[in-house]
């Protein structure tokens, strides 16, 4: 359903791109309450620049900082994702934008680079990652050759590229990267209104980074509505799932203390119910919320740079049933959509906009779309030497088989044994059955790892029959790293990037296929870790042993061992010895010693 809604934005996209060679800017925000007091907010910012003005470095809405990087690195199409958290498809249904606007946990980047050969493409890719790293304050520069792959079937360019370009697709991930405010600030700076006006003014780091799930994306692509008139388009999205309860907590008192006794909602029908005993009742009412409560501020009017003054742009959309009562600030215009579950608002510039939904009894729910495929990927087994990977695909559809591309990159220190790839299929009756993996795998693209140079790349074209769960397993071996290759937190384990699944979804409306992307969770691979104090101990021990050995051997070599009698005899023979004897005798005499003590 969500995707249906986005479809409904498509005419807008088409409309905007139908006006060629003009720069324009659109922004929108879609709000959808989800079960379990969650709220999905999808921000979308899109601006165009004509290709000529882009080539002439004449930027209006298009961010200059990014544009120059892209031109310098000869990047024709770019997709950058910052994602944190997990999309809970059991409660929240299918993913926003069909998963095309989200990435793996951390940072994911893929780009089509114009280059004559692979080496040049790699060099430009390095340039690109280094520059983006500086621009977005993220460790994108750590995407080196071991983390870069060239996917074959998982990604297709979404823009219109001229045939003369020799495009190379490069893909890299940073699964351990923590997305935080330092990434949001440069992200907002790319917008024409810089988060000062328009829906972007809601993006406050405190609330955004308290979300249960969040994805920020930057997409750059050339779009050619007519063969000779092309525009370059940049689209930025922020999708967040906020916990309404959590977001509504006041900022000076964010601790979820136990509620006071009188505010406890109890099931009074229980026989044992009393002042002291309470069986908590989960709320049947839909939570009330407002923009200023969940985001901490209201929309400070429409971005005046966006949209032509005469065209009406429905900036804020809300997906709740029409019967729900919603109150809005003065000046905004409400348009209810014919589908019965969504309504949109036109904002006025320089006028704050707020939206209040009071608490109401839940009547009808906006139907959530069932995900086309569920995937789970975990590391199994234990021990320092070996392990196994287990990937579970669950096709919830009772009628259609799911065809998809499974793409995973493994770090070089995880060495998979692809010959151990096995499949188990479980029907709805729960009977497990071991079957050859070739029954589901239609095509395989496998590029083995090279130690310290590149990781393993595995792309499988799979087909999972309807109403069944397929489990793929394979074994792997853990490599032992060099002592200097361990990160400071070696005992945490090593991040393994999530797998990317591209499902060939079909539109019910026009039968066209469009990709749906699903990403699994990232994994933590424990590797054999040395005791890092060991080299220190070894140094101490060897130094001690050498000192002792050297000392005694040196002693043995340079000293002569003689008895006391021999020493006296030897000493008496030399002049020095005789002199020394005389001196001693003289001193003894001075001290008054008359006789030597034998």
């Amino acid at each position, binding site marked *: 359903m969500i995707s249906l809604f986005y479809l409904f934005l498509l005419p807008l996209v088409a409309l905007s791109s139908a006006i060629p060679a003009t720069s324009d800017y659109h922004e929108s925000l879609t709000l959808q309450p989800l079960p379990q007091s969650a709220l999905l907010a999808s921000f979308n910012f899109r601006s165009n620049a004509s290709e000529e003005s882009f080539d002439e470095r004449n930027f209006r809405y298009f961010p200059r900082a990014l544009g120059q990087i892209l031109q310098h690195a000869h990047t024709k199409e770019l997709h950058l994702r910052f994602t944190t958290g997990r999309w809970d498809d059991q409660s929240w249904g299918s993913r926003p934008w069909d998963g095309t606007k989200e990435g793996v946990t951390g940072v994911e980047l893929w780009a089509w680079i114009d280059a004559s050969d692979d080496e040049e493409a790699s060099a430009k890719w390095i340039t690109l990652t280094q520059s983006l790293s500086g621009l977005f304050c993220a460790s994108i520069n750590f995407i080196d050759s071991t983390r870069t792959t060239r996917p074959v079937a998982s990604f297709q360019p979404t823009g219109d590229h001229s045939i003369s370009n020799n495009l190379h697709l490069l893909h890299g991930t940073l699964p351990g990267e923590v997305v935080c405010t330092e990434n949001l600030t440069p992200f907002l700076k790319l917008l024409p209104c810089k988060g000062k006006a328009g829906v972007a003014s809601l993006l406050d780091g405190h609330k955004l980074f308290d979300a249960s799930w969040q994805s920020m994306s930057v997409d750059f692509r050339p779009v050619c509505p007519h063969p000779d008139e092309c525009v370059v388009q940049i689209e930025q999205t922020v999708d967040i799932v906020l916990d309404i309860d959590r977001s509504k907590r006041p900022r000076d008192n964010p601790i979820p203390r136990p509620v006071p006794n009188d505010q406890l909602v109890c099931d009074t029908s229980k026989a044992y119910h009393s002042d002291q005993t309470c*069986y908590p009742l989960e709320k049947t009412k839909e939570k009330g919320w407002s923009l200023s409560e969940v985001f901490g501020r209201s929309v400070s009017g429409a971005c005046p740079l966006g949209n032509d003054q005469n065209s009406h742009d429905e900036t804020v959309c809300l997906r709740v049933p029409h019967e729900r009562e919603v109150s809005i600030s003065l000046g905004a215009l409400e348009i209810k959509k014919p589908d019965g579950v969504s309504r949109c608002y036109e904002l006025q510039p320089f006028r704050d906009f707020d939206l209040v939904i009071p608490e109401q009894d839940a009547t009808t729910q906006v139907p959530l779309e069932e995900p086309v495929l569920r995937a789970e990927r975990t590391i199994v087994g234990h021990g320092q030497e070996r392990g196994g990977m287990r990937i579970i695909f669950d096709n919830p559809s009772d009628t259609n088989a799911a065809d998809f591309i499974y793409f995973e990159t493994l770090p070089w220190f995880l060495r998979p044994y692809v010959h151990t790839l096995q499949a188990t299929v479980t029907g709805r009756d729960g009977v497990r059955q071991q079957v050859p993996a070739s029954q589901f795998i239609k095509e395989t693209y496998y590029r083995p790892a090279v130690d310290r140079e590149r990781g393993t790349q595995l792309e499988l074209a799979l087909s999972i029959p309807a109403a069944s769960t397929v489990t793929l397993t394979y074994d792997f071996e853990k490599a032992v790293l060099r002592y200097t290759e361990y990160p400071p937190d070696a005992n945490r384990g090593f991040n393994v990037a999530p797998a990317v699944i591209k499902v060939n979804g079909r539109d019910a409306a026009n039968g066209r296929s469009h990709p749906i992307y699903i990403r699994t969770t990232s994994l933590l691979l424990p590797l054999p870790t040395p005791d890092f104090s060991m080299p220190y101990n070894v140094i101490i021990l060897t130094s001690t042993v050498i000192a002792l050995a050297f000392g005694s051997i040196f002693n043995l070599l340079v000293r002569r061992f003689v008895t006391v009698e021999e020493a006296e005899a030897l000493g008496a023979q030399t002049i020095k010895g005789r002199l020394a004897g005389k001196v001693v005798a003289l001193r003894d005499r001075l001290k008054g010693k008359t006789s030597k003590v034998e």
Partner: protein
Amino acid sequence: MPIGPPFTPDYRKGQLTAIRKLRKNPRVLFVRLPYILSLVCIVAGIAWLLLLPLDEYSRRTYISENALLPGQVHAYFSGSEQHVFRGYKQELEGLIPGEDQEKGVSKADAQFTSEVSNKVQSILSAAGLKVATQAYEYTSSGITHQGENTYAIIRAPRGDATEAIVLVAAWRTADDELNLNGVTLALTLARYFKRWSLWSKDIIFLFPPDSKTGTQAWIDAYHDMQPASVQPLPLKSGALQGGVAMEYPFDHRFESLHISYDGVNGQLPNLDLFNTAVSIASGQMGIGANLQEMWNHNDSYEMRLQTMLRGMVKQGFGYATGAHSSFMPYHIDAITLKTKGEGWQDEMALGRTVEGLCRSLNNLLEHLHQSFFFYLLMQTNRFVSIGTYLPSAMLIAGNFTIMAIALWMRTGFDMDTQSGPTAVSTSAPKEKTSSSSEARSSKEKESATPSPEPSGIMERQLALPLTLVGGLHLLGLVPLYVFNNLSYKVSPIPQVQQLNSMTFLSISNKQQHYTMATYICIAANAILPTLLAAVLSSLGFTTPKPQQYLLIKSFSLLLLGLFLSTLATLNFSLSFMIGLLCAPLTFVSRLNPQTTSVGLRYALSTIGLLVLNLLSPPVVLLGLCWYTGVSVEHVLTQAAFGWDVWGMWTQVVVWCVWWPAWISGCALLGFSLF
């Protein structure tokens, strides 16, 4: 004969003569010295252990992992959460059959029925957790243990499913008591934790029906290592970083917390986890912490020693002491907190302690690795680390190796030809042998030393000793197999025992397979060595030569020393205990018919055999059972269960290390009879 130099003014001369004498007659070096060294090793090993509780040898505990920050956060679990706790408890109590004197049904016997499981699931899913169940079944000793684990996951609000913490609340505690308060507390905590957004790791709440099988089935399935009778897990999270099990098996308020930490096969959790629990419980919450059932620990030497020995016994036996034990083989650190005594702490105090522990574990950036994994605790804040205690077991294991090496060297020398009359004169009191034995010994000597080379170097005949020692070690597999696969039949039809180990003790009118097997084993142990000696001696071609007796002992002790010193690094306590029980084996050998009179020989060997039989594995088992008052069947059923379910290795050490060495020792004594 004195070894030390006579203390005279011309001691240099005396020293020289002593060395010269030693060179002429290496008997002292080869025969006497090893015994003295071995004895010194054993005495030093025991003394070392007894020194450990002293302040000079043990250390105060400390937190190594700075990220843990125990007790640095305020625990908010209080107030209206207690009302919710009472509500949940009422709800669960409503599903437990009430007291019924006539039918003999007691509330304490309530099982984790499907109604209880469903209620737990509905409470958890209402609180917004992801809930799943896992059915499992284990069969051991003919008893089927089956049950269904219920578990739920709080997904870290911004986490990526890479790490998780487990909280376990088993329906029945390790002592098979009803853990109603513990389960209710876990449910309340689940609802409370769900509201917090600070979790960096997923929190898994696990509700197994009992503490013995449930967690094992769950953790095996979590790593996809489960047997076929255990269902895989439908819902999983990331790498487990730590586990806390909570037990509150009574209704009144409690006084202190008992922390159990022993894992299967004597594995221990990281000391940091234990320290964190102690620090939060006693430091922040003001609840006393106990360990090893030492309720009145006054920090005296005796108390420390007792605590340490109790810990060693548990570690040595290697059985699971609670729901946390099954986590250890997977390198997941876990402990059990159990409430104890009658005091003024309520369930919220336990809840706050668990909250504090979770907050500490939540802070972890890396897997617990900083602190010790090998330690002996003697007080909640005092321990000895492996570097300090290991020499104790190593010394005892070393005594066998010293003796084995000495015997090996001794068999390479023909001391009789070299020392000649001196050797005879040194064994003066044993000269009065009967003429018949002298004749036999001279014959034996001839056959024993076929061609003594002039240098006194003798060829070793290894075939018989190697075969015998190797064969005995392989023979150990027979009792291992028998004891692990005996069926504990309650009735002709195998009956499904609903996870209630305590009923084993009460049922008396059944076939006591295990007791019978133990007695058969004792009888076999008494006969086998003598029989072995008789058979080998009577068959002409297998009659061992004197050198071969020494070689048998050498190999047997060499293997024992090898196994025990390796084991000492893995399970110190087991190695120490077996080492002590085997210590007499260093000192028994075949009595030489050449030097001992028949009467003395028979008397000595019979006494020796009797004493050794008192130290045989099954007799020691019986003795322990008698001392502790636990039935033999119970112990052996548990042992077989441990082997089948937990992967316990204690039996292997008993039957494949201790028993062969013991049989070899007995056989050597037995040879003296023939």
